[in-house]
């Protein structure tokens, strides 16, 4: 299949690559660009393990064609920490034991990152709804909610 040239900003760096029009963003991120933090957990856009930030919105990278990211700005888990310092959502997940096997975690973190910009001071109920596009099989969500609350608090006081 004829390949197409695309370029976009990935975690602050310009990247360029050739992709088939049918290639999914998640595969390009993981297999061509070596960013394996974002995962694949399903075939039906339900699990959210592939969640990344594209142009200021949470997207499921398994449901986006790589060509749709052309000229865009993509943030993945690899780009969350700045200058060796963890982002508050990363810190929150660690402090509140918000992860176990870690497979859902990158997607959760990216969703929490965007959600807290949409709603900086959420209630528990709002967090439950705001994170409901991301499945976790290990934690039962209770500590994920605490992790998001931890990050919200930390970001407010910053």
């Amino acid at each position, binding site marked *: 299949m004829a390949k197409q040239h695309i370029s976009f900003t990935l975690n602050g760096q310009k990247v360029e690559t050739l992709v*088939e029009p*049918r*290639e999914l963003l998640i*595969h390009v991120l*993981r*297999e061509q660009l*070596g*960013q*394996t*933090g*974002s*995962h*694949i*957990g*399903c*075939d*039906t856009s*339900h*699990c959210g*393990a592939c969640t990344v930030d594209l142009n200021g919105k949470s997207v499921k990278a398994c449901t986006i064609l790589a060509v749709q990211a052309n000229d865009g700005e993509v943030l*993945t*888990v*690899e780009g*969350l*920490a700045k200058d060796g310092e*963890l982002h508050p959502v*990363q810190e929150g*997940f*660690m*402090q509140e*034991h918000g*992860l*176990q*096997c*870690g*497979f*859902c*975690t*990158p997607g959760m*973190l990216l969703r929490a990152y965007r959600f807290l910009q949409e709603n900086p001071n959420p209630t528990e109920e709002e*967090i*439950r*709804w705001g*994170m*409901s*596009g*991301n*499945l*976790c*099989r*290990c*934690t*039962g*969500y*209770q*500590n*994920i*909610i605490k992790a998001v609350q931890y990050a919200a608090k930390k970001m407010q006081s910053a």
Partner: protein
Amino acid sequence: MSSTADTVEREKNLQGIGCSRKRKEDPRFIQGKGNYVDDIKMPGMLFADMVRSPHAHARIKSINKEKALALPGVHAVITAEDLKPLNLHWMPTLAGDVQAVLADEKVVFQQQEVALVVADDRYIAADATELVEVEYEELPPIVDPHKAMDPDAPIIREDLVGKMEGAHSKRLHDNHIFTWEVGQKDETDRVFETAEVTVKQEMTYQRVHPSPLETCGCVASFDKIKGTLTVYITSQAPHVVRTVVSQLSGIPESKVRIISPDIGGGFGNKVGVYPGYVATIVASIVLGRPVKWVEDRIEHLSTTAFARDYHMTGELAADKDGRIKALRVNVLADHGAFDACADPSKFPAGLFHICTGSYDIPTAYARVDGVYTNKAPGGVAYRCSFRVTEAVYLIERMVDVLAQKLNIDKAEIRFRNFIKPEQFPYTSAFGWEYDSGNYHAALKKVLEAVDYEGLRKEQAEKRARGELMGIGIVTFTEIVGAGPSKTCDILGIGMFDSCEIRVHPTGSALARMGTITQGQGHQTTYAQIIASELGIPSEDIQIEEGDTDTAPYGLGTYGSRTTPVGGAATAKAARKIRAKARKIAAHLLEVSEDDLEWDVDRFRVKGSPDQAKTMKEIAWAAYNNVPEGMEPGLEAVEYYDPPNFTYPFGAYVCVVDIDKYTGVTKIRRFYALDDCGTRINPMIIDGQIHGGLTEGFAVAMGQELIYDEGGNILGNSFMDYFLPTAVETPHWETDYTVTPSPHHPLGAKGVAESPHVGSIPTFTAAVVDAFAHLGVTHMNMPHNAFNVWKKIHELGLDKRS
């Protein structure tokens, strides 16, 4: 002089047993640096994809690979015909059966593996699977296990025709796998004949799937020059996989390296060896290149190991005060088309005979019959110890049924039948020796915490108003930590586990175990055990698992066996090191060993505490100044064969409100008290309990793998298969008591599965209890709105006045 404050400070520094230490594995996971199977990339790596059967039962007339092979980028299409010369078209299962690696002349369940396509990338591989032409002749399928042994039932396993001596017993029919009986049949029947009260209840435990967030997969890499095979694999038991792969392939075990890297959850699903793994390994051997195969979610739900599918009839005999005299159980077990249960070899129904539960039941008998159907193979322990979830469900349901029949409160009937604290160690009617327990105290604590009396009062008021509120109570006992090798083996290998510890000259340590973490936090908690035993701070202890080239042989992580078996091995290995350290300390201090006592992180001279040698100092001396005749170094290995299982227990209460018009069940409150003996890391324990409760909630309230009459699997994606999100998941309240195991070196029992095992019957109990005043004794899971509404409608409760 070491003051108390100093001791406390030094203990704190260790971050040992009992400390809620933050997890060692988190920094890599929160920064995207996990290393899961699908993250592995090797030079020259190819991708495999599977051609699968659209039919539940059909003969394969022909397979035409030509078009697929003609597609640019395709390297191979492998079928059973290609595997035959290697004798790899069938493989043994853990349950004494065989399973087709790639369908051999016949397919026996929908989505069965028919051909493996290997190509340059995953897109080409997927395209090529569409180009493989398979011609089928459909055969009638058996879907309902109750019909499997009908005289005219179509034969599913033609390879077994005439072989009436099965792995576990005589086979009664071509679709019969085994009959397994345990307990005293005649005595039980006699008690039933003369009992004041008897109750009987049928129940179906539906087919469900563990479905960890990461599916199964592997990367196989055969080095033709060295003759070595390396396989990265999503396995809960890498050492067993190595043995199986070596036996199947003929490659010496010393040249097979199995690596379980980070694993995205297992829950019992990743114990067995799947056809995809074997076919991928063959592809790598044949092509001489690394090959990756990672299944998608639909393949995962349709073909890898399911759990349950137990069709049970329970009976209790009791006196009129509700004191249980006997238990009788009959089970029909649907194992699918191959018996690929993961159980210790001698137990075709696992540890199901723990089904007398927490109760002092003098007489019992159980019979399980396994049958083949045209469904995916399996029967694994989904976050539980082999069939213990089914056992606990049965007894907890039966105790409620008896309570309702006699009009005795559901908490009270439990108090009347509990094994008493002074009866431990207690031998059950089925011969299990329960190590320790205090069931009365646990239930009492929970009832007080939830104000049980107040809840019953509220329920009575609501019933008077025609509202539906239910209170479920469960007091379960688990049996975990398989297991003593005299009773437990897998493929002939005793179910021990192992630990190897090396203390380096500068006092840090490296430890490796035969187990493998899938999210349980082994890298954190094992270090805590060693820290407490050796006085080396957790931070300075590195834990490694999952690489068979470096870790000692172990049976892996499932059935809550890590802490009971691996944890014990770790404590005992550490104690060997401490014993040697004591000798070195005596030599350094020029005193006799008997004059020394252990003090957190050092040996000190009794009565003269200033004279001491820290573990760090001893470690250095171990490499340059040991007593005469002693080998240098500070290492130990322990292979631990447990003397018994451990028996964690708990008391759970669930309160539900049910909407009469929609059938929607709201979990208002869920209170879980667990007793897992000694608690190594309370933060991790709580996390495991939250997770187990949530998986229990999923099973009870929504999960089910449904097949239609034609054997088509309905609901094999996340569209239909229920995984709760944060919105549906209830808030969990947790609590604990501590009753240490007397035979475990640390007193620990294992915990992660209890909340799954214990919570499922609690949800059912709560839902049924909402209808108990209307004579309802049982409702089958899943308790989704539609199923609950059907009951409401049948009872005529949804009529609007």
